[in-house]
């Protein structure tokens, strides 16, 4: 692996996709308003849950806001990188243009996962961080180095899990061709990440930590922020992240063996 080459290629990716996305400037403005409204909406929903209850699943309103913040950041990352690229995979496979990607002297997973970028997601990420800083103030969380590294580490793990989930479903396109709707299912399940895991019944809690590890994606990082998390949970998240990344990579290589091109 030649790191410098990949960095150089990535710079080119950034340049071209930013240039093409900035063509639609009003779109970016509309997306910003959408992101703000969506955050306002989910805080509104949360406030309905809390209007007569002090605690939901053991979380106070101020604490549950941290989950919203982390969800917003992760959703921003999804909209910036995962969504535009992985929907492209579906197109590549359906139209048979994956041939051109495979022929390039560069790793195919790298190419299809990072080719495109959607700048309007940045605004959502910033929005999420703003809310997060606000939460740190209202929850009176003291910042220190260990805390910062741990929280950054867990968020990175969440990003890895999230990426693997998206990539995993997009990879299945090689067999099923039209997985647009499977992505929609994943999206609607990820929506659950806006709420603390403990607010669900026991059976759903198991489902959301074993089958679709949404619990790991937002709840554990938020617990780290509040200083509630135990070490084993953080370690578990790291292990889950590694397993997911590794499996998604293997799965991609496995799936490529079944790729039969199309319309060429």
């Amino acid at each position, binding site marked *: 692996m030649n790191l410098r080459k990949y960095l150089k290629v990535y710079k080119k990716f950034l340049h071209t996709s930013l240039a093409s996305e900035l063509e639609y400037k009003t779109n970016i403005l509309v997306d910003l*308003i959408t992101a703000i409204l969506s955050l306002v909406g989910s805080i509104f929903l949360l406030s*309905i*849950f809390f209007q007569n209850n002090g605690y939901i699943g053991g979380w106070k309103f101020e604490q549950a806001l941290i989950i919203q913040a982390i969800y917003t950041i992760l959703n921003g990352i999804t909209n910036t990188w995962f969504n535009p690229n992985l929907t492209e995979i579906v197109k590549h496979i359906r139209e048979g243009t994956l041939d051109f990607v495979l022929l390039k002297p560069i790793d195919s997973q790298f190419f299809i996962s990072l080719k495109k970028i959607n700048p309007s997601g940045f605004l959502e990420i910033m929005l999420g961080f703003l809310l997060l800083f606000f939460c740190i103030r209202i929850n009176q969380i003291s910042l220190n180095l260990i805390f910062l590294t741990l929280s950054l580490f867990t968020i990175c793990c969440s990003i890895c899990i999230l990426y693997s989930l998206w990539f995993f479903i997009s990879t299945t396109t090689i067999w*099923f061709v039209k997985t647009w709707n499977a992505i929609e*299912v994943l999206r609607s399940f990820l929506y659950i990440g806006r709420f603390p895991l403990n607010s669900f*019944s026991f059976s759903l809690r198991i489902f959301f930590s074993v089958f679709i590890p949404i619990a790991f994606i937002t709840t554990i990082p938020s617990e780290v922020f509040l200083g509630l998390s135990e070490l084993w949970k953080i370690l578990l998240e790291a292990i889950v992240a590694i397993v997911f990344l590794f499996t998604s990579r293997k799965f991609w290589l496995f799936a490529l063996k079944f790729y039969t091109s199309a319309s060429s």
Partner: protein
Amino acid sequence: MISNLINRKILTLLKVQYSNMLEYRVEIALWAISGVIPFFMLNIWTTNNLNESINISDILLSRYFLCAFFVRQFSVVWVVFSFEEDSLMGKVSPYLIQPLNPFFRYLAQHLAEQITRFPFALIIAFFFFIFNPESIWIPNLGILLLSILSTFLSFLIQFLMQSIIACLCFWTEKASSIERLLFIPTLFLSGLLAPVVSFPSYVKSWIYLTPFPYLIDFPANLLSGNETNIIGGLCMQILWIFLLFPLFKKIWSEGTKKYTAMGS
């Protein structure tokens, strides 16, 4: 004579689209699954006993969310995405020559998809009743017919709203981002995630003047046997259709003058 012709056209369109939609059974099943969010919301409400504060029993609330799921299943609209793709690809041009407004084609597509979706929605409801056997009920025929009518009206309102946005494609090419913006209030205010009764009074004071609570909350309340103003709700739905329809006709006639036949 004329009505006969229209009937024949509509029937043919429906038949064609139905057989087209049957091809995509798996996709539609996935679509149906992606609508299960109301059940997760129900889980949050009942696990945390949040319904006590709004005076709705567990059973009525679970019926409400089941009905919300059903209403949503049969009022999902995606015309803006179809139209955007067709207009970018230049497929709208041949449609425009035909002596039939192309939106009839999309309308038939949606209706056909709903028929295809019906069995899957029933299967999901069946599973819901296995887990919540106490919430089984049989609405009387009159209520059932009225709620089917109001669900259809809700579908029409959303179809008209989205068609208006779709017509913006004639000016901006990418109208789907505006649709995503409009989807946010639809998601949070329609009652899909929380019944409108539970909203704080500062929202309830104006929300019934907007079309949103009539999209899901009203039909779902009607079907589930929760308290609701039947005549008022139906009148508001019809009123919104009468407001939106002339707007759509106007924007359509303005837009077609602007049409530049892209991609062909």
